[in-house]
């Protein structure tokens, strides 16, 4: 197992290739352009690899639908504005139960916004994003190593549950270089019978998202819902950092969680026993795990590079059992650990707890 120094975007692309991804379609957008650049080169080298720089994001996601239906491990990537355009196709994939991996390297929004790292796409990612009753598995990596591991896992999850999986990271994760070790991928287990490759002498197969009979569509919705409930039961992931003796919990994911870890070291030096709860699966949200913490810890501060999105999931999970404060820096601003530590010291009082709520 050799350690290599690699840029985050390229880590995702290499992990995808190693996981057996053989189809990529995408349209350029900063800060994720190294993904298509790397995929163009690597898919040329591997057997059966196909790379398409499509004419638009809509085209890219629909090419991914086609490749997925035809049995290829497929991926597309973009940043906020491009991901918005792909929602139609993501909704279709959820309806048709087709696996694929979609990468969103978030940048400042709304609209075209800017190209700096941000976490403003949490609602869009975790609430489905497109129309209709569906969910998307969303994974939030916080290091190059997790970009590699979670990208490989994303392909497995997509196959296992026959559903699109999103990697939700940001421009900083994409641009930063860190050491990474690529793990051995699991062999693919995707039922041959699901693949569209011509009926031949066998039975005709149809994949469709248009179900005109309301009763039939209702049944389809409930069937998808049962699947999402299974995912919610089985696939939550989180990291607990120095929570054993904590009096105050910071909740953050991705880049924000790294900053929070730096802040926690400073807070501990100042005598405040802070810990971190880091959701890794953003949907399904690790509700039970954060609720467990709230049974013994009274103070939570949610930190996001947005105006406050994940904080709603924390509130839903904790249900009034603890005080929840919020600190956010939207628009592409990446605060320092020192700044976050100062905010916590200003808002947290040992006697009264988190004093300034959102």
């Amino acid at each position: 197992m050799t350690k290599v120094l690699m840029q985050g975007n390229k880590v995702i692309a290499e992990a995808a290739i190693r996981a057996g991804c053989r189809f990529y379609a995408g349209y350029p957008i900063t800060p994720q352009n190294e993904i298509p650049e790397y995929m163009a080169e690597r898919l040329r080298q591997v057997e059966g690899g196909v790379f398409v720089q499509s004419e638009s994001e809509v085209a890219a996601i629909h090419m991914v639908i086609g490749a997925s239906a035809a049995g290829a491990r497929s991926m597309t990537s973009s940043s906020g504005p491009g991901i918005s355009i792909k929602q139609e196709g993501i909704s279709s994939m959820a309806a048709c139960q087709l696996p694929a991996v979609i990468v969103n390297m978030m940048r400042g929004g709304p609209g075209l916004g800017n190209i700096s790292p941000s976490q403003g796409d949490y609602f869009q990612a975790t609430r489905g994003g497109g129309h209709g009753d569906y969910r998307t598995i969303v994974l939030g990596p916080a290091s190059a190593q997790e970009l590699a591991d979670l990208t490989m896992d994303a392909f497995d999850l997509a196959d296992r549950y026959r559903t699109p999986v999103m990697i939700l990271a940001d421009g900083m994760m994409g641009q930063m270089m860190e050491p990474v070790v690529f793990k051995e991928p699991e062999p693919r287990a995707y039922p041959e019978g699901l693949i569209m490759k011509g009926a031949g002498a066998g039975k005709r197969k149809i994949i469709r998202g248009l179900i005109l009979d309301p009763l039939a569509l209702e049944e389809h919705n409930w069937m998808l819902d049962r699947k999402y409930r299974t995912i919610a039961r089985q696939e939550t992931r989180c990291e607990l950092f120095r929570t054993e003796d904590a009096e105050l919990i910071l909740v953050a994911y991705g880049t924000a969680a790294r900053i929070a870890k730096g802040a926690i070291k400073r807070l501990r030096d100042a005598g405040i026993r802070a810990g971190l709860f880091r959701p890794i699966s953003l949907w399904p949200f690790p509700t039970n795990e954060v609720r467990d913490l709230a049974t013994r810890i009274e103070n939570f501060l949610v930190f996001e590079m947005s105006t406050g999105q994940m904080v709603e999931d924390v509130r839903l999970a904790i249900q009034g059992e603890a005080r929840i404060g919020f600190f956010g820096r939207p628009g592409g601003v990446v605060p320092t650990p020192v700044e976050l530590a100062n905010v916590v010291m200003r808002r947290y009082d040992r006697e009264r707890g988190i004093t300034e709520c959102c």
Partner: protein
Amino acid sequence: MMVKTLFAGFGGQGVLMMGQTLAHGAMSAGYHVTYLPAYGAEVRGGTANCTVAVSDDEIASPIASELDNLVVLNAPSLFSFQNRIAAGGSLFMNSSIIGVEPSRKGIRIFKIPSSEMAEKLGNPRAANTVMMGALMKVTGMVPPDIFLSSMAAVMGSKKKSIVEINQKAFMAGYEFLK
């Protein structure tokens, strides 16, 4: 230990290469490391910079609010970043190109005529590597032998003669500061 170093200069001076070789070298020496380039709507001929964090513990933020070391290859970079150096931190400047004195006080200043030194070795473009030699001499972050093999790895696709000149440039910078 946590050391944050920012490299800056004109695009084309090998600023990002300096950061990558340090990051690779520090990784090979067993440290945690992050490398973050400034990215954005950059223009050809504009300035480039990157930040490398080296630590024996997990690195929280790859961004540096305060710099332990600043390496600048041109004057605009000196003006932009000298005030970000922590008190007692170090400034390494390419004195062949930067004719002005730094206004910053309370730091260690190392002036290296790296462009002239590189030119004498036969390739003025190796000025960045001369600076790396000086930086490694002063900070001791990465032992020279590990640094040189990392540099060869990062420059992997380049011509052998270019790698050789850079090895000489590194040693020239390393020996320049006593």
